[in-house]
């Protein structure tokens, strides 16, 4: 699954190349404490890469560093072949979009106005509002099923509607790279599925999608690649079928779990177990920390 982008020099390959995120020996410190240690990683376009790990493992910090919210203490981050540190704010925002954890809904905006904020990096004093902006907004709203909410005040939306509106905002940004920090937290399971399906479609269409998730089974069901972190280091990296193992969950999450294949998709499903319930005889697909 972890293929390199094709190198035939075509326009498509160039676009794909520009959407590649490369981390070289990246360390990040917060409050004088190093929370990400010497991470080297390439995040490919056309895939959904999911960062998971126990609380405080550094997954959110790593995402925020790639999103320019935190400066790396050492190491280098490249977007395509350009150093992230050399990109201006607006320029970076035309290449990568970020949905942070629980953004504040601005007062007084209709849903369509909120989605339109995603066009901000494409606008300037020189460039007036264009039909292209309108089309980007229309597409993003159709994709997130928020078209019918266009004239509703954003503050009046339910949690799930609001999150879909925020996702429409980052989709309207029309970037090759999408980054989302726990986009499904506190939402109904049906909304979680809906959101992950939207992101998976974007990945299939060629975007680089990087998501921090808390929910293991959601990651296993949608990710093309799972990166597991603990104590600021990458501990496992690969397609869900390879890394979502009982041993890894025991090692990295301290979780006793049984892994069974999804009868429909064959993807791994994690069943958390109470150690007391495990029979003495060997059970397939189970491990304790």
């Amino acid at each position, binding site marked *: 699954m972890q293929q390199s982008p094709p190198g035939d020099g075509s326009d498509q390959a160039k676009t794909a190349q520009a959407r590649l995120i490369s981390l070289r020996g990246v360390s990040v410190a917060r409050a004088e404490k190093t929370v990400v240690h010497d991470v080297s990683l390439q995040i490919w376009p056309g895939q959904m890469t999911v960062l998971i790990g126990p609380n405080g493992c550094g997954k959110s910090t790593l995402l925020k560093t790639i999103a320019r*919210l935190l400066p790396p203490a050492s190491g280098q981050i490249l977007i395509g072949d350009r150093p992230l540190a050399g990109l201006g*704010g607006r320029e970076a925002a035309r290449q990568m979009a*970020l949905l942070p954890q629980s953004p504040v809904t*601005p007062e007084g905006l209709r849903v369509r106005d909120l989605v339109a*904020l995603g066009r*901000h990096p494409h606008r300037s004093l020189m460039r007036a509002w264009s039909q292209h902006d309108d089309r980007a907004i229309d597409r993003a709203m159709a994709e997130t099923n928020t078209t019918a909410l266009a004239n509703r005040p954003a503050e009046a939306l339910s949690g799930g509607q609001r999150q879909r509106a925020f996702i429409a905002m980052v989709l309207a940004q029309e970037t090759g790279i999408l*980054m989302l920090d726990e986009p499904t937290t506190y939402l109904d399971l049906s909304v979680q599925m809906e959101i992950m399906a939207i992101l998976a479609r974007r990945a299939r269409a060629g975007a680089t999608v990087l998501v921090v998730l808390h929910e293991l089974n959601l990651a296993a069901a949608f990710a093309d690649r799972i990166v597991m972190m603990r104590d600021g280091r990458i501990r496992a990296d690969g397609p869900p079928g390879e890394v979502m193992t009982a041993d890894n969950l025991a090692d990295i999450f301290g979780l006793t779990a049984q892994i069974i294949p999804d009868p429909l998709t064959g993807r791994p499903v994690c069943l958390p177990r109470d150690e007391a319930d495990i029979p003495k005889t060997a059970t397939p697909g189970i491990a304790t920390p």
Partner: protein
Amino acid sequence: MNQRSLSLPLLLVALLLAAMLLHLCAGAEPQPLSLVWSVLHGEAPDTFEAAIIRELRLPRALGAALAGAGLAAAGVLMQAVTRNPLAEPGLFGLLAGAALTVLLARLIPGLSSPGLVAPLAAAGSAFGAMLVFALVRAAGDGGGVLTPALAGAAVTAFLVALTTMISLMEARAFEDMRVWLSGSFAGLRLGVVAMVAPWALAGLGLALFTGPKLTILTMGDEAATGLGLNPRRIRALALIAVVVMTAAAVALAGPLGFVGLTVPHAVRLIGPMGQGRLLALSALAGAGYLVLADTLARTVIAPVEISAGILTALVGAPVLVLLVRMRA
């Protein structure tokens, strides 16, 4: 920009112009609109009545419009940046700081020229804002909406006490400042308006540039950075605009309280809108509001005059109470 989004600003511009004409006509001795019209066209006869309109009323009308626009816009910026609905120049120590420095400068021979009033007021309002900020810091986090308002009240009370003390100790030197300290356009000369106008307009320009970005900033610094903004830069620009507009208003009329609170919250009643539109509409409404306040100040108990600042406080104080109650 569609028609709907332009009709309201145009209506407010029309109301502002009407308020200014009313201001020029009304007064202890009302003048006909025809005379005002010919004065504005520079065709008026050289009469006492024409001089009243040209020399006394016109500077006040222009000054009130500039100060009102600036103070209302400053309120919008402060409310967005601090996420505090009670933020405005008067309640957060900016007006008191500006008034104190202008007064102090009167005691120093080299600093009393009229051209220096606006820059001195800017330094003073920045100083007042810094005092409030330091006090909020010292009080620690978690105070919510009221901590900055309380810090602002404390700083304002302190600075006003200093101002009063100085003006009482040097009563003779500050005889003419007493009215100014209550927030009044009385005696405003066209020369002063011309000197201060660039400050007010520069501040308004910066505010209109920053305003739309504040909508994005209200989503939080992370989301704003994701959309290509630099939150610290936007906040710094907004603060500069606030200080410059407040300074211009103080240079024109002294410390005029509550305009930055009353006007934006009244405009919010119109309906939901982004920060950019709120800012533009508030500036227009604020200009009209102060022009009307000054018209009333000159006419309600004519020939005696009351200060526009007293009128805005009479309206603003109940609005403040209402806001706090609505939040509670």
